[in-house]
C-alpha cells in the first residue's frame, strides 16, 4: 500500500522537474534570441518585417520541447499509467 504513495509522490516530483527545467531552457533560449532580434532591429529597422516572421517561427521551434514536456506531464498527472501496475 505504501508503494502506491511512493509512485504518486515520485511522479509529482518528476512532473515539477519536467515542467520547471523545460521552462528554464525555453525561456533562456527565447530571451537570447529576442535580444539578438532587438539588436538587429535597432541596427537595421528596414529589416524588421522579415526578421519578425522568422523570429516567431523560432519561438515556436524553441518552445516545442518544453510544450511536449508539459503535455507529457499533464498526461502523467491525470492518467498515470504507472499506477495501474500496482492494481
Amino acid at each position, binding site marked *: 500500500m505504501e508503494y502506491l504513495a511512493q509512485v504518486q509522490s515520485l511522479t509529482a516530483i518528476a512532473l515539477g522537474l519536467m515542467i520547471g527545467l523545460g521552462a528554464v531552457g525555453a525561456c533562456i533560449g527565447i530571451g537570447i534570441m529576442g535580444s539578438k532580434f532587438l539588436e538587429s532591429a535597432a541596427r537595421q529597422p528596414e529589416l524588421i518585417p522579415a526578421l519578425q516572421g522568422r523570429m516567431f517561427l523560432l*519561438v515556436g521551434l524553441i*518552445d516545442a520541447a518544453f*510544450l511536449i514536456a508539459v503535455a507529457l506531464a*499533464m498526461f502523467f498527472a491525470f*492518467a498515470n499509467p504507472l499506477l495501474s501496475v500496482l492494481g
Partner: protein
Amino acid sequence: MAAEAPDSSTAYITHHLKHLSVGEGFWTLHLDTLIVSIGLGVIAMGLLFMVARKATAGVPSKGQAFVEMLVDFVDGQVRDVFHGDRGFIAPLGLTIFVWVFLMNAMDLLPLDLPGVVASWFGAHEFRVVPTADMNTTFAMSITVILLVLFYSFKAKGAGGYAHELFTAPFGPNPLLWIPNFLLNIVELLSKPVSLAMRLFGNMYAGELVFMLIALLGATWAGFTLGSSVSMLGQVVMGAAWAIFHILIITLQAFIFMVLTIVYIALAHEHH
C-alpha cells in the same frame, strides 16, 4: 453543491479527456476526431473552392480579397525557400495552414459545450480538438515524410538518393558510410516525430489548462463569497488564456506549414 474532493475534480478532467471511440486495441477509431477533422476539412476547402470559382479579375469581393491575401502569404513563404515548380507545394502549404488553423481553433469553444451537443445525439464523451489527438498530428506528419521520401527519389533518382544517404554529411570515405547512414536515418525519423509532437503538445497542454481553469467555475455553490470569487477568477483567467491561445493556434499552424515546405524543399536539393 459540488464538493471539491480530489476525486471529483480529477474525474471531471479525466472525463473530458476521453475520446468517443469504437473498436479496441489497434483498431480503435476516435469518431470525434474523425468527424470534426473531416467536417472542418470539407468546410474549409469547400469555402476556398467556392470563392475560387467566382473569382473575377475586376474589383474583388471581400471573400475573394481575403483568399487572395492567404494565397499570397503562403506563396511568399514557398518562394522564399523553394526555387523550383511551386505547383504542388504551395497548395499543399495552403491546405495545411488553413486546415490545421481551423482544427486548432476548435479549442476556443467553451469546454462543456461540445459535450452537451454530443449528448443530444447520444454520445457521452466528445473531444472536439482533432489536433489534440496524437492520431491526427502523426497522420499529417507521416504523410509529410512520405512526400519528402517521394520527392527525394524523384529529384535525385534512387541511385543519387542512396549515394547521398551514405555520403552526407561527413564525406565519401567508406569508413564514414555507417555514421552517415545512421545520422540520416535519425534525421528522417526525428522530423515527423518532432513535427507531430510539437503540434500535439501545444494543443493538449492548451486544452488541459482550459480544463483546469474550468474547474474553478465548477465549484459554483450559489452566490456565496467563495464561489463568486472562483467564478470571477475563472472568467478572467479563461479570457486571458484564450487570448494567449489565439496566438499559439496561429503560430502552430504557421510553423507546421513552414516546416513542411522547408522539408520538401530540402528533399529537392542536390549536394
